[in-house]
């Protein structure tokens, strides 16, 4: 059962439009799986005054190791400090700074809208996951701007609930 959306939910993440993009680093981390890993990564980010704009975690190709994708606002520190501070952690095997590279930068959004007529969403490439009395649930994936544009479109359909995945990033090879 879906709960009713809180009335204050904004369609667009307030941070997206306003932030100073020159301070954002996009990092891809390979880490050891373990109960302390995420605590330590987030601990370093907090302690050094970095702000997490986006994060996603999933298994990597190597057993026992996960991939963390981070979008970090490095604040007043030198840009390279984010990578260097993360590399100090023994749990972190590899930090790749992808900022400014040619990337596939994708995000997944799942949303339920009150409307049953969702043609405009489908035209943007959304897929219907389920329909019911509470509304229609769709999924959509795309670049950050596309996802933001999609979420704007959702508001016109009456958002009941919306969830975004955070970024998944890979360097373009072809």
């Amino acid at each position: 059962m879906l709960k009713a959306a809180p009335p204050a939910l904004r369609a667009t993440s307030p941070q997206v439009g306003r932030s100073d993009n020159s301070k954002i680093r996009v990092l891809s981390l390979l880490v050891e799986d373990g109960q302390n890993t995420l605590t330590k990564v987030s601990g370093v980010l907090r302690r050094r005054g970095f702000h997490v704009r986006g994060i996603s975690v999933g298994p990597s190709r190597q057993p026992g190791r996960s991939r963390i994708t981070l979008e970090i606002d490095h604040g007043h520190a030198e840009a390279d400090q984010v990578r260097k501070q993360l590399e100090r952690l023994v749990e972190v095997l590899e930090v790749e700074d992808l900022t400014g590279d040619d990337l596939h930068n994708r995000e997944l959004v799942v949303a339920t809208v009150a409307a049953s007529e969702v043609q405009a969403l489908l035209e943007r490439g959304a897929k219907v996951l389920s329909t019911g009395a509470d509304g229609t649930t769709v999924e959509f994936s795309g670049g950050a701007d596309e996802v933001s544009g999609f979420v704007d479109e959702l508001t016109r359909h009456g958002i009941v609930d919306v969830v975004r995945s955070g970024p998944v990033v890979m360097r373009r090879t072809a």
Partner: protein
Amino acid sequence: MVLEALEREGVEYIFGYPGGANLPIYQHLHEHPHLKHILVRHEQGAAHMADGYARACGKPGVVFATSGPGALNLVTGLCTAYMDSVPMIAITGQVVSTQVGRDAFQESDVIGATSSVTKHSYLVTKIGQLPRVIHEAFHIATTGRPGPVLIDICKDVQQAEAERVNTEYLEIPGYRLNGHVDLEGARQAAHALARAERPVILAGHGVLLSHAERELMQLAEAAAAPVGTTLLGIGAFPVKHPLSLHMTGFMGTGWCLKAVQNADVLMMVGMRVDDRVTAKLSEFAPNVKTFIHVDIDPSEMGKNVRPHIELVADARLALEAMLPHIDKLQADRGKWLAQIDAWREEHPLRYQRSNGKLQPQDVLIDMYRRAKSEAIIVADVGQNQIWAALWWNYDRPGLFINSGGSGTMGFALPAALGAKFGRPDLPVWCVAGEGGFVMTAQELSVAVEHQLDVKIVLLNNFSLGMVRQFQDDFYGGVRSQVDMTHMPDFVKLCEAYGLPALRVEKFEEIGPSFDAAERTKGPFLIDFRIDPEANVYPIVPLGKGLNEFREAPEYA
């Protein structure tokens, strides 16, 4: 299992305190006579003892504490070691693994509480992990940039039996060591130093940790470059050497600060370049055209000052690699060194010596006359620390121990006891104010129990002197909560603990009191009732640049 592993790592002393969650380890302690356990009176004392031990003898200090409050009492001591890159292994008991997360008795999230003050930490929930973890922990604590490593071991794991595993082979893919020197960078750095008109070298704790004192001396002499040290770098370069600038930073010597502010090439070796070294960052070393930074930790590069030439390497290897490239000095150093000598004349260290009150500097000067370079000085934090740093001519490494980065009051007494365990061959002097001393004074029991030959010099001004000086100078002269009234009678306190002590109120009594201390085997305390208005100079006002240092008034 734990104790066997510690024996294999060559551990001699453990500073610890037993409790519910580490009882299985203590049950077997008597079976390991090579492991000497020192029972402290508070876990913070254990951490500082292990710290002082490690700084004095170079081996990692080992600490035991139980779960919950026992482990949390270590936090300040871990932070002290972490900030100053001291190798330490803290082994804490944790509740039974099936109880973790249930708010069990004396359970606390030790990993969470200590992550930001340890180089690395482990929670051990299965016996199979233990041998590898302990071996790894020692490796990580002692290599690269050293630091404390915490191992939190569930009680059921402590009780479990396991096959002995071969732990010779280590595989820690996430642990990077930066020992190698970029030879091209070293050549560039050497050339910049040789071509400089007004070079200055600043040496930090990293020089001591990598035993690079000889290379530093060779390089400084080859490049005719004056050398200042940070508070923790004291001993890296002999204070009496003609090229010595003594200590830098916001309480450094006037001639060192002048040299730094006028230098055109500044090489910083084995140091973090923190706010106590730079004072106001935007006004730090404004005439420098080439900053050279040598440090083993890549994250130090550009953290505070962006270097033009960076060498991420062990200090000794980096200096060694630079040496052959210092051939011909392009600029005549005569003028620059003469200028520094002039500043040395112009801004000497001085103090009030004519008001009839006992001056802390007189106490330290008398101590130095006796001890020369044959004693370890362990200072606390505050005015006593800076006096002990400036009024003593350290000419060898490892003789001055203090909490620099963390500035932990209460450090000196337990650290001095630890230093004595680590270097029983050297006299050990503890210098502390009365404020810091009472924070860990309970460890006097350890001094008496083991009859440790540690002499305690209490510079007692019945106030938090450094705070009082800051309030006087930088906070409108409003003295707030700095009077340490209702302190114990320290001579009687020592009597209660079982060690001899003296009170000294006059200049003439300094010598005889030290005579008495030196005649006495075992611990001894002298309660010096110093001038409560004595200040630390030079000092840079908070938030100002280094060139705005204030000097001691010209006393009549």
